[in-house]
């Protein structure tokens, strides 16, 4: 269908249609992702069980008071930790590998079934409910941030080599040199506690007011490094020949900047930006735990503190999956921005 409507049928024969190439590419990349995910899984598994024995996990879950050895055995049995870690010498054939903690806990993840956390909750369900809050902070931060950073960088580029530019860069470096913790502590203190503008922390149904502060703080925290980076990209573009040509055509500085520079700076910007989009789901560890936002970031922190292996492993898996998705998205976005780029 695609071919029939194309103006030059000959070209069709040489390169397969775009959407078929795309599907082939996607399949190849997904196959490529499998060994990576297996590697990630092995690594987390190894790291975790070098530290913890299943007994430790049981004790962690069972609390301090009056924990008997029987209770520990029972807990391990109930949660499937009563098997050997990697290789089951007692079993025969394929069961040597499948009847182990590693296999039993990992295999199902590849179909996105994360099983139950060590305290008995359904992890997939938890992830689904927590994704919303995470996104409601991360997405506005990302989008508004992108707009603000790029405009700020454009402004600095527009005024390059003037006092405004120098002041801007200095401001960026200053902002970069402050630890993210200070932004959060300071923001809560000033905006929440002194000025009573928004709730200090919390998260409510459809609450715009809960989202404002974390988003503002998130944006301010990233302004330094991002704006500076975009500025560097724009400056590099503006030094190129086509910009000189455009100027010679009599385009105003603003037109040059917005029409030509911004468009051509797209590829380097996309490299850095698209890869993080899927990771927005994971939320932010610091922001979420400070503001009491029930997202995936605070889930992860809690799991680390509680040494809940099932959750940590699920989050690592999810993180890697989203990262790989980000890489693929980046490649695809190149072809959309610049048709000369071919997927290979």
């Amino acid at each position, binding site marked *: 269908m695609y071919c029939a409507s194309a103006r030059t049928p000959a070209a069709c024969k040489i390169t397969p249609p775009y959407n078929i190439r795309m599907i082939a590419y996607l399949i190849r990349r997904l196959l490529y992702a499998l060994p990576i995910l297996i590697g990630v899984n092995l690594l987390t598994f190894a790291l975790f069980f070098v530290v*913890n024995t299943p007994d*430790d996990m049981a*004790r*962690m*879950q*069972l*609390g*301090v*008071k*009056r*924990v*008997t*050895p029987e*209770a520990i055995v*029972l*807990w391990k049995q*109930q949660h499937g930790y009563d098997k050997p870690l990697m290789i089951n010498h007692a079993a025969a054939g394929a069961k040597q590998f499948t009847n182990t903690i590693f296999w039993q806990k990992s295999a199902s993840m590849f179909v996105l079934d994360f099983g139950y956390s060590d*305290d*008995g*909750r*359904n992890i997939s*369900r938890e992830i689904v*409910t*927590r994704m919303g809050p995470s996104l409601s902070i991360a997405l506005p931060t990302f989008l508004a941030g992108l707009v603000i950073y790029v405009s700020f960088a454009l*402004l600095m580029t*527009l*005024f390059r080599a003037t006092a405004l530019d120098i002041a801007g860069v200095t401001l960026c470096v200053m902002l970069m040199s402050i630890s993210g913790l200070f932004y959060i*502590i300071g923001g*809560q*203190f000033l905006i*929440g*506690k*002194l*000025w*009573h*503008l*928004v*709730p*200090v*922390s*919390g*998260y*409510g*149904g459809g*609450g715009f*007011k*809960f989202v404002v502060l974390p988003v503002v703080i998130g944006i301010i925290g990233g302004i330094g490094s991002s704006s500076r980076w975009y500025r560097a990209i724009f400056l590099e573009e503006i030094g190129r020949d086509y910009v000189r040509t455009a100027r010679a055509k*009599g385009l*105003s*500085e*603003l037109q040059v900047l917005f029409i030509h520079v911004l468009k051509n700076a797209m590829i380097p910007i996309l490299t850095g930006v698209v890869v993080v989009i899927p990771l927005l789901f994971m939320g932010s560890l610091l922001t979420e*735990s*400070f*503001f*009491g936002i*029930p997202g995936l970031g*605070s*889930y992860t922190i*809690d799991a680390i503190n509680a*040494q809940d292996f099932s959750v940590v492993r699920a989050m690592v898996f999810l993180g890697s999956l989203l990262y790989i998705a980000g890489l693929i998205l980046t490649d695809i976005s190149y072809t959309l921005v610049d048709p000369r780029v071919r997927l290979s």
Partner: protein
Amino acid sequence: MKYIAGFLLLTLLTACDVWNNPYPSADAGKAILYTAFTERPKHLDPAQAYSENEYAFLANIYAPPLQYHYLKRPYQLVPQAADSMPVITYLDSRQRQLPADAPAEKIAFSVYEIHIKPGMHYQPHPAFARDAQGLPEYFHLKPADLNDIHAPGDFSHSGTRVVTAADYVYQIKRLANPQLHQPIFGVMSEYIIGLKEYAQTLQQTLKKHPDDFLDLTALPLPGVTVVNETTYRITIHGKYPQFAYWLAMPFFAPMPPEAERFYAQAGMKERNLTLDWWPVGSGPYYLSQNDPNRLMVLSKNPDYHSELYPAEGEAGDLPAGLLADAGHPLPLTDKVVFTLEKETIPYWSKFLQGYYDASGISSDSFDQAIQVTGGGEASVSGAMQAQGITLSTSVATSTLYTGFNWLDPVVGGCGRHIPSPQSSPLMDESKQSDSTCNPERARKLRQAISIAVDFEEFISIFANGRGIAAQSPIPPGIFGYREGAAGINSVVYDWVNGAPERKPLTAAKRLLAEAGYPDGVDEKTHQPLVINLDTTASGVGDKAHLDWMRKQFNQLGVQLVVRSTDYNRFQDKVRRGDTQMFYYGWNADYPDPENFLFLLDGAQGKVNHGGENASNYSNPEYDRLFNEMKNMENSPDRQLIIDRMLTILHDDSPWLWGYHPKNYVLQHGWLYNVKPNVMATNKLKYWRVDAKLRDERRAQWNKPVLWPLWLGGSAMLLFALWIWHVLRQRENARSLQDNSPV
């Protein structure tokens, strides 16, 4: 001009509003109690939950037979679901009844007969829903029926039913259910007749039919029997007066078998619909919203009518207004909203803004809010007084101590270590130096350290006076604690001018020299004395603790090495006896000295017996006295034995006794009937709020400060205008340049 007027109007309008209210504005004016929880509960099943943060919810949802009187002190058990206190009958080994004053060794069985109040009802729940034929409506659900169900409230029907004695018996059976985590099965199986065998029976049944629902109603438990609709009996081995305290814990609350059957249906667990997540209770509240990542809401159980606000209390309660609501049906609020608040700063800020009604000052971050006045009385600071915030104090029935490991050759009591297969070779090596162990020397060393570590200073720095230095494991308010000169630890304190005074450092140094370490250096080997302290401390502010501790030891010239580890490793070390000193704490299960003194019972030794005696202390005389004291009723005789035990402890100093923390609760002026009660966990039903006053105060305290917004906005606007202006100038200049002849 018009715009400016509009702006002003807008400012005025918005200024009246409160912007930072974290709750829906529709909830204004309702009798809702707002409080916070800092950690999500792991278990909400009364057979499995055993920690304070879980009881904060459970104790208000489930109604065990007994409870602690809210107002009276010392702590006293009163009926809750029972209509009177249990009737106890003692039997000898041949099942013959004995008089109430029979000697303990003759008593082979005690029978507790409990009458519950008739007509109590469970919370509304779909497990009780009945269809037109009167049959359970939701007992044969298909997975598809659950598609839109996320909480029990999502079912279209619910029902309730009368609480029966059989439900109480059912719950006791659940304590032995091997499918559940059973924290008190170990203790209870020693007392309740047949419980141990019952667990085995259940295990076997499970093995035979692993996929079937385990129906406990079909399997009788001999020690627990139903007498009639409202009466049941529990038979226990021997005499165990502390058993009544257990009856006040949710472990012994009623559990309808329907609930377990309901949740056992396929598809429930995947949706987190379990008894461990959605309780089914007969208490004053029920859990109506369960989002432990954010919010837990308890709503008033519409079928709870069995309890009134107590009519009598302590002497000071009437003037304090604590009896104003006497005779009102409980609970006094319609809803309790618990918000998750993991970080202390937001918690504290929100309390000051009026969004929490009360705040426990559990973290030491709040302590500057408190001023300890002349007589040692605490009060809130001036600014908070102006807000109408008041404070109530109580000493917690817990003790935070630093134990010496009795098995350690340097600081220990030359206790013997029975090697276990798990112990590392390294540790066995250290234990072989037992021959060099000299009990007298170690005792002097421990005593010296006990004097040198100044817990009065610790309390004033880290708790701002929120605690009292401990003289023994027994905190005030527990039988066996002695006020005044008789109660002091004579090894560490002198009684001076009517108050205990810590012995001077010179005394500690003298003891240290007598122990053979003059100025912290071993006489024989000339090696400096190094002591290791194990702790799990690695969090915020713990560094200060450890620095302080090191400072205390430095005064003696002894080097303290702090080995902080994660929780698991620490537990592991304590279990293996691989420590020298360690931080530990104990929260009482019930207000009885036995619950504290057993922590030092030799038979409870952690390493050799896996018990709760983490320092592995053992002293035959102490153990003998403990066994004698254990099952006695409170009496002067018991006090005498306890005194003797404490003297042994003081002399041996197996712990730095540490301190008993004080609980401070801050509350706003609109909250009534708050009296600290460290034993009762079901206090919420007594509290009352004046919602109108609360709304007024909140509005008054939280006027948004708008000038920064205006300032920021105008600055941005000016900046934009300036940029625009500069750009225009530039363009003009350029076009001029382009047009001008070169």
